[in-house]
């Protein structure tokens, strides 16, 4: 059992979630535990069995995830990045919740897929691998330094189907489209990263400027997606203003032309999205979105919405 450090105090900013968390004690206890590390197999280069064997040979203790046997959970203090198999691009290190959006996006070989806020590229890499290193992944970010880290990810994993661009996603040129699928992994207040970084609670969750950017990014993503195509919106925060309220605003703007699909992954426990917050009623279909509280699967916090643009 990882040690429980009772000295970590739960930020007062989180108290407002008391009414929407199913088990407050378990939530608080999970926040005080260090976060497990996670590594997923680059199946373009090797097999899950070989990654497991390589990690074990390094003295680590990989446990396959219940819902994704090609990915492994490692104890919180593991350093799987400093190993030969990592340098060889046999696996990538990423938090478990960061594995949720791409299976829900479900990109197919040969398609055109846009990752609007892509750096440092962990999800871009998952998309490229799922597409069997064929077709088109366009990975965009506004930050040039982070875009270089994205290039590093592409190079180490041997991805041959990714183009990178440096642009404001909210103003991404429409002539670049249409795309079959768009991932919108927005900048957010990152409250769900609390187990990794206790400073995150100082960020002002739900700041209007940030929510405005998130809404603009999602709206742009819908414009860039072909009718009949899929858009996945993700954050790593608990704040409803950055999650359901953003999706609600964009759903209202698009009316009949946009609908939510169930965000469900077999074997991973989630809570339904909110359909009401602070007395405000939201679009009832928002219960199809996925809220991840840390105690449900011993992970960080996360939110995912899967949208389909109507043909």
């Amino acid at each position, binding site marked *: 059992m990882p040690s429980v450090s009772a000295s970590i105090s739960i930020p007062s900013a989180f108290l407002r979630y008391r009414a929407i968390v199913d088990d407050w004690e378990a939530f608080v206890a999970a926040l005080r535990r260090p976060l497990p590390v996670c590594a997923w197999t680059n199946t373009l280069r090797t097999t899950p069995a070989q990654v497991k064997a390589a990690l074990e040979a390094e003295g680590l203790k990989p446990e396959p995830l219940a819902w994704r046997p090609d990915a492994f959970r490692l104890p919180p203090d593991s*350093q799987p990045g*400093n190993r*030969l198999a990592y*340098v*060889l*691009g046999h696996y990538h290190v990423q938090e478990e919740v960061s594995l949720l959006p791409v299976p829900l996006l479900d990109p197919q070989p*040969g398609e*055109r897929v846009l990752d609007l806020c892509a750096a440092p590229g962990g999800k871009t890499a998952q998309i490229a691998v799922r597409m069997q*290193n*064929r*077709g*088109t992944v*366009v990975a*965009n970010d506004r930050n040039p330094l982070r*875009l270089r880290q994205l*290039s*590093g990810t*592409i*190079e*180490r994993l*041997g*991805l*041959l*189907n*990714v*183009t*990178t*661009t*440096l*642009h404001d996603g909210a103003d*991404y*040129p429409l*002539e*670049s489209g249409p795309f079959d699928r768009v991932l919108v992994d927005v900048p957010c207040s990152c409250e769900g990263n609390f187990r990794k970084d206790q400073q995150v609670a100082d960020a002002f969750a739900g700041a209007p400027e940030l929510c405005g950017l998130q809404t603009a990014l999602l709206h742009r993503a819908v414009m860039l997606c072909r009718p009949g195509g899929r858009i996945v919106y993700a954050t790593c925060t608990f704040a409803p203003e950055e999650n359901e309220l953003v999706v609600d605003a964009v759903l209202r703007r698009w009316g009949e032309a946009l609908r939510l699909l169930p965000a469900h992954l077999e074997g991973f426990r989630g809570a339904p999205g909110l359909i009401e917050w602070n007395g405000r009623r939201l679009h009832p279909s928002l219960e199809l979105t996925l809220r991840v509280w840390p105690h449900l699967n011993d992970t960080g916090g996360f939110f995912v919405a899967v949208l389909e643009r109507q043909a």
Partner: protein
Amino acid sequence: MKGTPELQQAVKIVDPAPYFRYLEERFGIPPSTFDGYVLVQPGRKKVYIVTADHRPPARPRPRTVGLPFLRIYLKFPKLSTAAAQQFGHAATRNVIDVDAAQAEAFLTRRDFRARPEQLTLCTGRGYVLVRYQGHTLGVGFLIPDEEGGCVESMLPKSWARDPDSFSLTAS
């Protein structure tokens, strides 16, 4: 080998023949290794390799397209570390199989000595592929001498491991 119309619009397509010829001469890599890919030049110094069905946008202008392949405008083009790891398995010449201590030196960007019997596949001074346990780690530069040779690690800083914490030899 021309790529999609979108690719042609977005980026300069490069004639691969001279590069493939060079890689075949130096490393014995058959050009057919690269079937299904196109070489492009999004910037000035590097040629990239990308899947032939790729359809990038022309606007915004791509920063990178696919995987770095070769750095050009050098006396000899240098194969990128990424391309060496990806395609090195096809090489038959100028490959050095290294032991754990040598691999550790290479990955921490230190030069290492190669013994004469490790140079049987090498044709002389120049770029070599450094292979460990069947995996290509990257590109080195071989300077042969009477007792074998010295291999300079050409691993870019961004790929290098920290010598204080990375080890292939510690038990």
